């Protein structure tokens, strides 16, 4: 019974939101604001159980890890933003978090996104004699595309002459990439719609296979 009522409520709210396609109306506004409230309530409950209780309360109270009170205190400095006179205290929390993030990301980003990507571009050329003709062509196109795209984004030199030509080639590669991205974006958005329509037709009305 609960499942049936739930499905009817879900279907009703779905149709309330779809009513926006005709024009903005109170049903849509009701559903939109209800969603915002429920999502916030969900975050409160989940954050409490999954993070506050599990990461702070239990370790401190049950396991006696009192050192965790230090980051708790630093984290609570974030609430200083509500008191104008002490707003500057939030910088300590931000500085700590951003410092750790920045320090961790430098070597790993360099390794994953620069070294490994450059290696993958150049690696086919090390054994080029063993590659098929199509693989050689593809490797050359990839290397050329990468170089021209990077030249396009290099604004310290005026895009004239050879640099201008390379930049133009880079734009063509970018346009191919954006076209592919657009095609996939259409696919993604249509998929989301299919999901909801399938729910309405299959789970609610039982008329789809």
């Amino acid at each position: 019974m609960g499942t049936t009522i739930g499905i009817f409520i879900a279907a009703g709210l779905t149709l309330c939101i779809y009513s926006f396609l005709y024009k903005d109306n109170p049903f849509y506004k009701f559903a939109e604001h209800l969603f915002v409230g429920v999502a916030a309530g969900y975050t409160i409950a989940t954050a409490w159980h999954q993070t506050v209780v599990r990461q702070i309360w239990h370790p401190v109270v049950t396991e006696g890890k009192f050192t965790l009170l230090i980051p708790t205190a630093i984290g609570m400095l974030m609430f200083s933003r509500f008191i104008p006179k002490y707003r500057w205290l939030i910088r300590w929390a931000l500085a700590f978090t951003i410092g750790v993030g920045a320090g961790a990301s430098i070597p790993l980003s360099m390794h994953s996104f620069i070294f490994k990507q450059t290696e993958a571009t150049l690696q086919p050329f090390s054994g080029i004699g063993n590659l098929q003709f199509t693989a050689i062509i593809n490797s050359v196109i990839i290397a050329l595309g990468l170089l021209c795209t990077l030249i396009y984004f290099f604004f310290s030199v005026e895009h004239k002459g050879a640099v201008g030509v390379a930049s133009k080639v880079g734009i063509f590669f970018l346009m191919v990439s954006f076209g592919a991205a657009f095609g996939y974006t259409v696919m993604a958005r249509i998929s989301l719609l299919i999901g909801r329509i399938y729910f309405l037709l299959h789970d609610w009305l039982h008329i789809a296979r």
Partner: protein
Amino acid sequence: MKILDKLATLDRRYIFLMVALTVIVPLLFPIGMPITVTKEVQTVYDYIEKLPPGSTIMLAMDYDPAALAELYPMNLAVLRHAYSRDIKVIGMTLWITGATLGNLVMREAAEGIAQEGEDYVYLGFVTGAASVIMGMGEDISAVYPTDYGGRPLSEVPAMKGIKNYKDIDLLIDLAAGATPESWIAYAGSKYGQTIAVGCTAVSAVGYYPFLNSNQIIGLIGGMKGAAEYEKLIEARGTATAGMDSQSIAHILIIVLIIVANISYFAVRKKTTV
């Protein structure tokens, strides 16, 4: 020419109606177009298929209900595949809005074939993203002292012998955002973890460089990728059911773009003349 003028100023609600019909009709009257499995999805399937029973995979379910249609079928298919091969699954999420969703999908996939605690464990959500990924490289129980339900990990049979990434045979990140890049950088680069990615179609194009550099072993992109995986595990699900609608809707969009360009150039030519 009048038709072209009218087309140039078509009320968008007619377009909405056309889109809705192209999705609804194939769901009611399926065509049954065959689905071809791409190499990047096949690789993920083959990797899990070759894992011996008793292996462990980690599934990062980094998505929320907004990406449900694309990632939930993919999630179910991968879980069912793992459970049917007696592979243990450790589920977790970096998205707070996905915490309950992860629990629901693991339970739904396990119905009749897997036991919570024995065959799978769901760790839930912890703040930090990058710090969570890096922390699990040293000790998973330091990041997640308990599972989603509050049970200490030391008491969960599925976590026996699992300390960090060295004990995980494959990590699959099902992502609606940019979390795969964090997994690749922090788990892949630093700890050498084998990673596969399942993502929304919007993000799929951006992960081909990582596929090319072998930083990920495979890529399941969007609802089409989910349908391919469903085909491989021979279990028709919502992704497969939606493929006909996907195809017809794409044809509609292509026709709309072509018609719009024809009317645009015809109207422009008329005004120039």
